């Protein structure tokens, strides 16, 4: 196979931090469905070591790296505290800058996310196509509105981050989140178009420069010191990582203002109305970027428990296979990973399923799972309870 010169630029200390004990294997979604070393965290780190020591990779290596969902479930499982996520991000960035890893059409797709006007136009086209029923249902897209109603600010106490895809396709979720936040007595404001996209998918794809540009722009859209609430686990994880991504004091300060909306609400439950009995059972799918990256998934349970009876799944936070753009580029693996999740959801046996991340929501819905954002569930309970 053709060899390609490479320098992954991963600190030696990080590479050797893995002792290859293998305890990550069962917590890796791609190992779980393939049972192959090359699809395991331990295997991927060994591959990185091999690449760094030889200075060469081949196409097979690129495929192995591209097959990682970047859920970071391995980090939670790792007794040695190996920081797999940053090593994989460095590897992807090296591949994107030194090889033909990201083809032009993928780059174009990622670029669209940071351009609200282009994204809105593309979404409108998609919406029309949906109406003439040429968009396959299995893609799991929500009904995209042709005309988007604007989100209206109600005060300046907190910011609500709106994002790219979520704002274009799932703005009603933002509205539900806004109503729940307002029920605590807080006024909500929204950023301008500079906060078009957090750049999480770009980091995952290895497009570090694009991600850093988006991060710089996004930060300008949140003046002042009000907390920045995020209702998408993936975006929240990214915004909280700006300090690390940009390495500036300003970015550190910005990241400290970011909260997953459930974290913020969990501190203010006393300000919310109490739910009427009986409480419905809700199976909670923990998004990886909430559980393994932000490590704040418990807040979702706390908030849900105020209104419902939340039930955890029995798969120890194994990924659902969505992985941002992963489910689009690796449909077969993504759907095998999802099958395990669906089995776990079924075992929980609850009539309602919640997930606090738009990627997981879309991915699970495309398999026919009725799943809503936790705050949409709470919003509808509050509306009903009046």
């Amino acid at each position, binding site marked *: 196979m053709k060899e390609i010169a490479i320098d992954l630029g991963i600190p030696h200390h990080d590479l050797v931090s893995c002792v290859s*004990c*293998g305890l990550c294997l069962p917590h890796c979604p791609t190992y779980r469905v393939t049972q192959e*070393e*090359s699809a395991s965290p331990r295997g991927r780190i060994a591959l990185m070591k091999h690449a760094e020591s030889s200075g060469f990779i081949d196409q097979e*290596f690129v495929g192995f790296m591209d097959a990682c969902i970047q859920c970071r479930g391995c980090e939670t499982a790792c*007794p040695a505290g190996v920081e797999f996520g940053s090593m994989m991000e460095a590897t992807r960035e090296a591949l994107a800058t030194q090889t033909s890893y990201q083809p032009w059409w993928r780059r174009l797709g990622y670029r669209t996310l940071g351009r609200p006007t282009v994204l809105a136009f593309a979404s409108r086209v998609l919406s029309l196509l949906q109406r003439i029923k040429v968009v396959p249902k299995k893609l799991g897209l929500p009904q995209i509105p042709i005309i988007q109603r604007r989100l209206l600010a109600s005060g300046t106490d907190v910011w609500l981050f709106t994002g790219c895809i979520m704002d274009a396709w799932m703005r009603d979720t933002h509205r539900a989140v806004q109503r729940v936040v307002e029920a605590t007595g807080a006024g909500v404001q929204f950023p301008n178009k500079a906060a078009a996209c957090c750049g999480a998918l770009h980091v995952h794809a290895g497009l570090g420069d694009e991600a850093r540009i988006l991060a710089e722009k996004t930060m300008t859209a949140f003046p002042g010191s009000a907390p920045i609430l995020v209702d998408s686990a993936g975006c929240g994880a990214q915004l909280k990582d700006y300090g690390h991504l940009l390495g500036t004091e300003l970015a550190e300060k910005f990241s400290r203002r970011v909260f997953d909306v459930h974290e913020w609400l969990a501190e203010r439950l006393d300000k919310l109305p109490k739910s009427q009995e009986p409480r419905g059972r809700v199976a909670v799918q923990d998004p990886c970027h909430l559980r393994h990256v932000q490590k704040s998934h418990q807040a979702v349970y706390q908030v849900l428990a105020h209104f419902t009876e939340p039930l955890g799944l029995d798969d120890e936070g194994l990924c659902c296979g969505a992985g941002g753009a992963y489910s689009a580029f690796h449909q077969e693996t993504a759907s095998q990973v999802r099958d395990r999740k669906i089995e776990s959801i079924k075992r929980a046996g609850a009539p309602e399923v919640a997930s606090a991340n738009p990627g997981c929501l879309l991915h699970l819905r495309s398999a026919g799972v009725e799943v809503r954002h936790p705050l949409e569930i709470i919003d509808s309970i509050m509306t009903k309870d009046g």
Partner: protein
Amino acid sequence: MQISPDGNLLDDLRSVLGDRVRDGDFELGLYGKDGSVLEGRPSLVCLPVNTDEVRQIVKICREHDRPFLARGSGTGLAGGAVPVGDPVIIATAKMNQILEVDLENRIAWVEPGVLNLDLTKELTPQGFHFAPDPSSQQVCSIGGNVANNSGGPHCLAYGVTSAHVAAIEVVLPDGSVTLLGDLAAEPPGYDLRGLFVGSEGTMGVATKVAVRLTPNPPAVRTLLLDFPDVRDGAATVSAIIAAGLIPAALEMMDKRAIEIVEAFVNAGYPTEADAVLLVELDGLPGGVEHGVEVVRSVAERHQVGNIRVAADNEERELLWKGRKNAFGAVARIKPDYYLHDTVVPRGKLVEVLEKVYKIADAYDLIAVNVFHAGDGNLHPILAYDSDEKGVLERVHAAGRAIVTASIEAGGVLSGEHGIGLEKRDYMGMLFSAHDMATQDLVREAFDPEGFANPLKVLPSGSRCSDSFGQHVPDGAWV
């Protein structure tokens, strides 16, 4: 020297397995390692999904005069799955189906790639579990457990893997498929099943395993006892057993182990203590409560500090999570570790432990001790940084000294990790040449030409038919 696989071998294997035969440079490297520090390189990797494919792989290997090596999850610590002599790897990880659960006869038929904890999780709602529970329980495979006759904390009361395997379907090194053992309680004839369990892949490949199911105990109590001195902890271990009690598990951790484990799990392990004992009692509620009182009174006679009883299952699981992740967590001190596995008479625990600390000091290494105290199974961990010049020589020398000290105290080479490659050349410390030649005769009865996992367990020279290459893997101290 590396022998490149000849084209026909690859073609023949591909005709059976298609793209489940791997020969890529990067991927082959991944199957050269297990959980130990040893490293080799296979000639090819095969990923079969059923018995017949395994049978055909073995047959093709024979036709091409090429050895083979069965691999499970690759978490072994003695290099048993590290390829030597350019074997074809038969990775059984994809053979991961639980085929049949027969509660009435308390037997489950499983494929070798089923993960130990997955099996227990499947059985738990039905009131049963698979008793052997190595620290790597969440990832190690039943096939690997069979190969190594694996133990685990709860094997003190329940016995090791051999006691929990009724029968095994095996592809023998001659390519035939046979059933060893029987589901009947006392099968007639030689116990070939017992011979196969623990044979570390040198007698063939297990393709189906009939495991015995153990009922979940009606009551469980888990206690964490801390001691100001490791000697008091060790004395308590002997005194508990002497008091006539056999706890389900009786584990010990020293100060360094407590610190790293607590950093990972935040379970409230007492970091100021010199040692802790993790004691688990199970059975009928009355018996368990009696056991708790015995442990308490024995410990109080040995300067115990705090006695913490896990309030619920969640607390119990957290304490065990700490214990079972201790090895990996060593990386919090140094990037590499060498984990030893010897057994000493319980009464000699303190004496040998003190020697272990002295040996580590003498070789300028850090020793961490986490072990199955109840059965005297020591697991001294030597933490080091492989970037330090010449450190591996010191680690190996210290390891040899620890093994020697254990044997001098009346112990044995290995408790549960196996001999593999790591301790192959130490066999002579415990066995005479005559002993080893006799063991080799047994092996030859299964594998006269030495096709199955060659150059493992018995040192070269103990057999007349070491016909395959003797490529010594990197890091090997053979």
